[in-house]
């Protein structure tokens, strides 16, 4: 009897008293958390909402600050400002080139860091992490100082160099995460069956880490397109999209900028929706096949 007593007390507490009070408390807490979360997300979207709304504004003067009236003009002719068009073109080109280079360099580095035990690995790990923990203003300034010392003219090429430099660490971190969650035995099997290291990499490793590499490339491209700080130091006379916006704040940012920003967001949303639909279709097909 004495042995049975404690569980009974615990059962009573667990089964009757605690849940009812706890559940009510829980529900209240969930509500509070939910409202807080909704407000936090709203906070994130307030400025974006303003950007979207003002892309339809018809400003009287140069300043797109107050609501004047609805127009679709800027949506129909987003590239009327030649400087803005050049800036956008530069940003896209810089992102493309630097993403390809950084993704290639970073993927190989991640391979080496995850797949091989070698002396100096933790040092390399730390060295790759260092640019991530350095303020952008320091990276940009140091690079500019180097270009000045070497009397290299800053411009398109130096921007690409800078972007590869600071996106490569992001690529390494992203691809590493993917590699660490991967089964090594499949690669070992390929090598046991006589594949060379290079063939194994091409035919086995690369297809398996492809999602990680794609995510890393997307991240690198997004960081490159959006970078202002490092670019501002190494741009010379070249203007990118963020540099154009910053420069335009004094004379008023034209609504075409809002149109391009909203357009980019729409493209991203459409791509994400397509991705979800594709995943669902694949999942359904797999389910049908197994059934």
């Amino acid at each position, binding site marked *: 009897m004495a042995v049975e007593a404690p569980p009974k007390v615990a059962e009573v507490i667990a089964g009757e008293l605690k849940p009812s009070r706890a559940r009510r408390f829980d529900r209240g807490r969930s509500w509070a*958390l939910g409202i*807080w979360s909704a407000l936090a997300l709203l906070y*994130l979207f307030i400025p974006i909402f303003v950007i979207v709304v003002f892309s339809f504004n018809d400003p009287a003067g140069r300043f797109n600050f107050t609501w004047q009236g609805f127009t679709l003009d800027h949506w129909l002719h987003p590239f009327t400002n030649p400087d803005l068009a050049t800036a956008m073109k530069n940003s896209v080109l810089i992102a493309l080139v630097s993403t390809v280079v950084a993704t290639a360099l970073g993927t190989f580095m991640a391979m080496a860091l995850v797949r091989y035990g070698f002396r100096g690995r933790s040092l390399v790990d730390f060295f*790759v992490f260092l*640019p991530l923990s350095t*303020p952008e203003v320091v990276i940009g300034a*140091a690079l500019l100082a180097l270009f000045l010392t070497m009397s290299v003219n800053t411009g398109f090429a130096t921007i690409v160099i800078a972007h590869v430099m*600071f996106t490569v660490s992001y690529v390494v971190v992203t691809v590493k995460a993917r590699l660490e969650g991967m089964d090594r035995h499949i690669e070992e099997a390929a090598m046991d069956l006589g594949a060379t290291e290079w063939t194994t990499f091409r035919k086995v490793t690369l297809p398996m880490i492809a999602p990680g590499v794609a995510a890393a490339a997307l991240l690198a491209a997004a960081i490159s397109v959006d970078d*202002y700080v490092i670019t501002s130091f190494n741009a010379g006379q070249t203007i990118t999209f963020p540099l154009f916006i910053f420069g335009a704040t004094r004379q008023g940012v034209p609504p075409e900028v809002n149109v391009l*920003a909203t357009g980019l967001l729409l493209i991203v949303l459409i791509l994400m929706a397509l991705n979800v639909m594709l995943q669902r279709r694949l999942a359904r097909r797999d389910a049908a096949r197994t059934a």
Partner: protein
Amino acid sequence: MSVLRLSLNQRRKLTPWMFLAPGLLWLIVFFLIPLINQWNVSLMTGNPEDGYTFTWAWSTYTDAISEYDEQFLRSIGYAATATILTFVIAFPLAYFIAFKAGRWKNFMLLLIILPFFVSFVLRTVSWQLILADDGFVVDTLKSIGLVGDDGRLLATSTAVVAGITYNFLPFMALPLYVSLEKIDKRFIEAATDLYASRATAFRKVTLPLALPGIFAGSLLTFIPACGDFINAALLGTPRQYMIGNVIQNKYLIIQDYPSAAALSFILMTFILIGIFLYARVLGARNLTEAAI
């Protein structure tokens, strides 16, 4: 057999370095050497017209600190305030997504990431518009008396800190979510089964297990916030300028390279020491591990 194994061994020793070489070289040439060169530049004297020569001018450092101590302290103050604010805003959000969101989880995560696809500079310009003197927000705050009749939000410290908080909120929210998501819920159940109150379970189980995320999130917020100059430039006035503004100004406009180099060196050293101490205090095993 032994010959073959030896050559394989040697090849295996070389392979990682072959994989590493291109990227490592890029980082050495365009990250490490610039930093060393910047240290070199910081010890030069001269002027923009005649150029600068190396003279072991340590005085640049003492001058820089005594002249810009205000901007340094302001950077640290703004960055620390913004980091705490992002934590206060992001922790309940991350907690909700990790434990309560159910089928809304992915959607909410998407909403946190989505702002990244709108230009950082443009979002800050947008805040300029929202906080403007005759804007809706200032009018509302005036009518409820939170802001005086001639009060303003734009061009104040509040605006700059709010801007930094806004811009780095996702950097805090995402690592927090990742670490909370990883927590095995049975640990928390076990704690409450063992008669820990909800608060105790949270304090003794959830919070310690979320430490890596708190660590990563606050670093990802504090470091860039310390060097940020866009928020101060767009939402503040020279009276709100941070050390990033000074460095940028000196490099690109005044062309006082040694002083700018010294300032960015001090900033970097301060941050590295800060990370180190922080890691010691929180006992995070591995910095890179925390960052992922």
